[in-house]
């Protein structure tokens, strides 16, 4: 049993997971300290309020509001859990997008633009095809594929520039991000998809549910009543598994990773490095496109079409999601949910206490930032382990020294035998 445990501990994967968990805990601890400092220095927040803030940072996802006396209550919160999963869907997908690119030696900072490209294509298809003529589920599939392809196309642009002209993909991705933001704004500005029927919804596009198109709930709404969750999260998880299989089990993944690790050696082995660079950016783009697609296809969110001044958070948040998961596609599912849980906790903090949304953002940012200390923590864990082993070995040397000497003598004798 003990041996099994130490073997389990010696695994690289175990250490990675432990390191991630520890860095998350440290991040939350430091976030709590900020909550306390802000609470104690602010006139509107009492020390009780500060303590409530800390509790919400750690357990915001289980928050169920306040009881009649005004104390915070915690418990199973289907709304929070469901919303966490709903918001995790695009984060997981953009996280996958960044992770795939990283694994192939590319930094996809263009997830935001690809997300917007996917958004535009999805909304256009989902709203323009009349559901009176075409069954809604077919429209859903077309809109989903449209988002996927639009994202892939938008990702392939920096990929192509990198492959053919060796222009750094970070530069071109940043530019394609802003091109997407302006193009999408222009596209919706001239479209007839602006919401004109609902009061207070100017600047928004119709929800896809206006056309009767929305992602099925598959019973998840029964599990988490009152939340926005739908089957999108399941699609994201399936895609994560598919990406994992593609990257680690197929020749395609072997080639893509080879190009990332050593482009010269890949060329030497007859791998088409240029095609693969375009391909990995297209795959990364497709995943970000799907992120946008699934978010808006939920049918219960509406898109603010005038995006030319701001890029969607989901695009950039994919970067910490991927980093925290060490680019492991399966781990991305968990880190995506974690990031989304933080957002939900932040909302609780904002709704239930006097902390405003800006300080909430600072706290979540701190947690994410410190979570990225993962590598330091991992080195620390491995180092401690190694020192332990060293100690054991030095104490064991006097006994084994004789044996090695004996073995050496034996070998020498054998050698002499060979010589004669």
């Amino acid at each position: 049993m003990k041996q099994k445990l130490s073997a389990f501990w010696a695994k690289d994967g175990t250490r990675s997971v432990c390191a991630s968990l520890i860095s998350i805990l440290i991040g939350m601890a430091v976030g709590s300290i900020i909550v306390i400092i802000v609470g104690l220095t602010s006139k509107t927040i009492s020390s009780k309020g500060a303590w409530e803030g800390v509790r919400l940072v750690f357990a915001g996802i289980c928050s169920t509001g306040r009881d009649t006396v005004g104390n915070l209550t915690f418990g199973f919160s289907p709304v929070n859990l469901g919303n966490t999963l709903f918001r995790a869907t695009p984060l997981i997908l953009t996280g996958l997008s960044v992770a795939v690119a990283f694994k192939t030696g590319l930094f996809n900072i263009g997830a935001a633009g690809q997300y917007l490209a996917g958004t535009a294509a999805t909304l256009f298809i989902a709203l323009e095809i009349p559901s009176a003529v075409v069954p809604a589920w077919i429209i859903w599939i077309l809109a989903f594929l449209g988002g996927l392809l639009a994202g892939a196309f938008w990702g392939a642009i920096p990929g192509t520039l990198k492959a053919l002209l060796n222009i750094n993909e970070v530069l071109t991705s940043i530019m394609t991000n802003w091109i997407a933001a302006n193009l999408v704004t222009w596209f919706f500005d001239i479209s007839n998809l602006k919401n004109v029927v609902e009061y207070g919804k100017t600047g928004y596009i119709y929800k896809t549910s206006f056309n009767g198109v929305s992602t099925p709930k598959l019973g998840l709404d029964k599990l988490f009543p009152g939340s926005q969750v739908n089957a999108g999260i399941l699609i994201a998880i399936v895609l994560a598994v598919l990406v994992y299989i593609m990257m680690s089990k197929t020749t395609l993944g072997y080639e893509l990773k080879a190009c990332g690790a050593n482009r010269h050696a890949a060329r030497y082995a007859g791998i088409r490095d240029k095609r693969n660079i375009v391909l990995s950016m297209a795959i990364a783009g497709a995943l970000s496109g799907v992120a946008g697609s699934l978010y808006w296809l939920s049918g219960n969110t509406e898109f603010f079409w005038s995006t030319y001044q701001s890029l969607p958070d989901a695009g950039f948040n994919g970067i910490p999601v991927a980093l925290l998961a060490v680019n492991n596609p399966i781990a991305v599912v968990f880190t995506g949910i974690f990031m989304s849980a933080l957002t939900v906790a932040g909302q609780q903090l904002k709704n239930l206490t006097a902390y405003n949304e800006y300080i909430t953002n600072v706290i979540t940012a701190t947690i994410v930032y410190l979570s990225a200390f993962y590598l330091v923590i991992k080195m620390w864990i491995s180092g401690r382990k190694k020192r332990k082993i060293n100690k054991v070995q030095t104490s064991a040397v006097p006994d084994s020294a004789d044996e090695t000497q004996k073995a050496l003598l034996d070998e020498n004798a054998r050698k002499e035998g060979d010589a004669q």
Partner: protein
Amino acid sequence: MPDSEYVIEMLHITKEFPGIIANDDITLQLKKGEIHALLGENGAGKSTLMSVLFGLYQPEAGEIRKNGEVVKISDPNDATALHIGMVHQHFQLIDVFTVLDNIILGAETAKLGFLQKDEARKKVSELSERYGLHVDLDAKVEDITVGMQQRVEILKMLYRDNEILIFDEPTAVLTPQEIKELMLIMRNLTKESKSILFISHKLQEIMEVSDRVTVLRKGKYVGTLETKNTTKEELSRMMVGRPVHLVVEKGPAHPADDILTVEHLTVPSKLHKNNAVKDVSFSVRAGEIVCIAGIDGNGQTELVYALTGLEKPSAGKLSLCGQNITSATVRARSKNGMSHIPEDRHKHGLILDYTLEQNLVLQRYWEPGFQNKGFIKFDAVRAYAQKLIAEYDVRSGQGPITKARSMSGGNQQKAIVAREIDKDPELLVAVQPTRGLDVGAIEYIHKKLVEQRDAGKGVLLVSLELDEVMNVSDRILVMYEGEIVGEFDPKKVTVEELGLYMAGAKRDRKESETA
């Protein structure tokens, strides 16, 4: 016990790394004023032992004594304080500094923050005169020859009053003349009662220069011998653990049809405006080893890139086994029967972050045997890797799942050779296949090349080492400034004659076609 006969003793040193015991109870005793050679194959533990002496690693067991007294060396500063100095295989010099600046770097004498270079200059000039180390103190390191750079490294050690000098494979980068000079310098140093540890796997040099020699094998101590009482054959047997043939054994070649024909090949250079390869024509026949000799940088690299498809030629025609491959892809050439042992094993030969087994299937992962509908057959890959590892004796810490990066250079090369030869090619292009390898590995790779020849394959060997050129090849082409300036039969030509062609002092009239 004071007044020991030995200036440095390393007794029963044991150093372990995960999965491998690099030094297993090794004892090395260096007498005052001797040249002591440390001999062993790559991965035998020479570098680890020296790193222990230099304070870079702490041994798990054993002790170090200086003049009979136990000392603790926990970092390189301790080693320096004990007057131990090392000339690394890769020089530790700053290119844009002058020779003098490099020598005094880290041990500058200064008054009020101003360098006292005159004093230093005097001391360095004295040293260089006393030991016959000729250097130009005001030249920048980037402008001087490799041989002179090495003398700078030696002066660095002397300037710090080191008594124990470690030379880590000092001859690997030198020309034959420079090697002779170095040996003279080493003898001068011992006359002045310096003690030298000389790490090498070149037997010739050890026999010439050392007083005693300690042999290591696979991390274990094999023995210490007086050099004058031993022979190269005995040393190589101790080092490799079996008798080694120092001369390549091969029968006469039986060349048949052309495998590779190169016609009027021209390749542009990436470094300058001229062509790197100029109108080169030759052929390689089945059953012969053709060697391209020449000094580094005369177009050999570009020629190979064009042959293997890594670069496009600007003119000319290439055929492999009768098929025109001038504009074929790398993969197509590979499928057509071309294997390539590349010059730079880290840049082209291996994906260092991939495991050994992933690297071993690098040229054939796409074959039906290793994948099914795009899914890698991991069992087949593992089995194949284990087969190659056993057959070609590729040693590594964790077998097939070892990261290529963590393997020794010799074993990395063996892995590449295994991969390229096991593909059963018609033409094997081997570029400096034995660079940086030890006798055992060199013998092995030469044997494999001859085996390929005897199996009726064509072998194109590109080499900078004249010994290799003379020993292995059946036909020699000398390349100078992108052109083939001569063709020779190794049995009928002397090394001196080849040298003249390689240096551009002599050339045959240009032939339109070589048979």
